[in-house]
C-alpha cells in the first residue's frame, strides 16, 4: 500500500469518528462534567482549607482524569463493533494499526484536549498554588495521550464482551500507575520549588513510546474481538 492511500484512510476514519461524536455532544460533555463534580466533591469531603486542598489537588485532578477516561472509553469501539464498521475496518487494505491510531487521535481530541483546557478551572477550585499551574497543564498535555492510547487497548479487548465497565477498570488502572506517579510527582516538585521538568520529560518519553506501540496492541485486540 502506498502512503497516499494510507493517509487518505487515516483521514477518512478520523472524519467519520469526529462527525459521529459531533452528533452526540453529550458524550464529550459528560466526562468533563464528571471531572468537575469529582473535583468539587473533595473540598466538601476533606474541608476547604487551602493547605490540604493545594497538596492533594494534582492527585485529585489526575485520579479524576483516569476515572473519566474509563467512563468514556466504551464509545471508542462499542458502536463500531455493534454496527459492523469495526469488521469493515479490519478488512481494509491499509494497516489496521494506522486506522486504530486515527481513532486514538480522535479520542484524545475529544477527551484529552478538553481536559487540558479544563485544568485551570479544576486547579482554581482546588486552590492549587499558582506556581504549579503550568506544570499541571504540562503533565496533562503530555500525559493524556497515554490515557487515550492505553484506554483504547482495553476498550478493544473488551468490546465484544458487552459488559466491559468494571472489567475495563480492572485491566487498565494498574497500567496507569506510572502515569499517575510521575504526573502528580511533577506537580509536587513545582510546589516545593524544585525542578519539575525531569518528570515532565519522562512523561513525554513514555507518551511517545505508548503512542508508538499502543496502535499495534489495539489492532491485535480488534482482530481478536471481531473473531
Amino acid at each position, binding site marked *: 500500500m502506498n502512503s497516499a492511500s494510507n493517509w487518505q484512510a487515516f483521514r477518512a476514519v478520523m472524519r467519520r469518528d469526529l462527525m*459521529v461524536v459531533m452528533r452526540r455532544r453529550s458524550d464529550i460533555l459528560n466526562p468533563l462534567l464528571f471531572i468537575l463534580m469529582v473535583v468539587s466533591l473533595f473540598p466538601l469531603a476533606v474541608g476547604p482549607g487551602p493547605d490540604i486542598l493545594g497538596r492533594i489537588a494534582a492527585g485529585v485532578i489526575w485520579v479524576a482524569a483516569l476515572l473519566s477516561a474509563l467512563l468514556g472509553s466504551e464509545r471508542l469501539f462499542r*458502536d463500531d463493533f455493534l454496527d459492523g464498521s469495526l*469488521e*469493515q475496518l479490519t*478488512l481494509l*487494505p491499509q494497516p489496521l494499526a494506522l486506522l486504530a491510531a486515527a481513532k486514538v487521535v480522535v479520542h484524545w481530541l475529544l477527551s484529552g484536549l478538553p481536559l487540558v483546557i479544563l485544568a485551570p478551572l479544576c486547579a482554581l477550585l482546588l486552590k492549587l498554588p499558582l506556581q504549579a499551574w503550568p506544570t499541571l497543564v504540562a503533565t496533562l498535555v503530555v500525559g493524556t495521550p497515554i490515557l487515550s492510547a492505553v484506554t483504547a487497548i482495553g476498550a478493544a479487548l473488551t468490546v465484544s464482551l458487552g459488559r466491559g465497565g468494571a472489567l475495563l477498570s480492572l485491566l487498565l488502572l494498574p497500567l496507569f500507575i506510572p502515569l499517575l506517579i510521575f504526573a502528580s510527582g511533577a506537580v509536587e516538585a513545582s510546589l516545593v520549588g524544585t525542578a519539575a521538568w525531569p518528570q515532565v520529560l519522562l512523561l513525554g518519553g513514555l507518551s511517545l513510546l505508548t503512542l508508538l506501540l499502543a496502535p499495534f496492541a489495539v489492532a491485535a485486540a480488534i482482530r481478536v474481538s471481531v473473531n
Partner: protein
Amino acid sequence: MSTLLTVKQLVSQRAGRTLFADLSFDLQRGDVLHIEGVNGAGKSTLLRALVGLVQLQAGDIRYFPESALPTDANDWRQQVLFLGHKPGVKAELTALENVSLQAQLSGVESIEPWQLLATVGLLGLEDLPAGQLSAGQQRRIALTRLWYSQAPLWILDEPFTALDTDGIELLQQRFAEHTAAGGAIILTSHQPLTWQPTRLQRLRITGGDE
C-alpha cells in the same frame, strides 16, 4: 488468470463440533457460488474465514492462485469486497454522509453520492440520520458499495436480508452485471435466487450432521 480463489480442505470446529470438514472449491471469473445450509450450519463462519475474520482449524485459502507473484495479505484485500450481517452504517450520520464516508474509506474518490442514493431508491431520505431508517433502508445504504467497488470478488453474507422484492430484484440485476463483467460472487441466502446465473455452483453445509 481466470481462477480467483482456491479453497482446499477447510476444517471448522466450534465447541468441539465439526461444522464442516474437507471443504474444497474453486471460483472462476463469472461464477456465482451459492452457499446453503440451515441456521448455525457454519455459512457465516465459512465466509468470515475466507476474508480472515475467523481462523479455521485447518485448510488452505488462496486468492489468485495462478498469479506468478505471491499475493500478500494487503493485495487480496483490495480485490475482495465483504459485506457481513451487520451493515456497517453509522446511525448518527445521514444516508448521504454514510455513502460518502464509506466511499472514502474504500479509497474511492470520484463517486456521485446522490446518484448512488437514487440508484438504491433512497432519494428523499438522504438527510435523515440512518438510525431513523428501516433495516432494509440501512441495508440499501451499505449495498451502495456494490455500485462503485472495483473488487472482482464479492463475498456477501445474506445480502437479501430485510430487502423488499424490488430491492432483491435490483440487487440481482447488479449481480448479473458484475458476473457478466467477469466478476465472481459468493453469497449465502435462505431465499432461492429468482435470477438464473449462467454459472451457478451450489454448496451445501450440513453443520456437523455427518
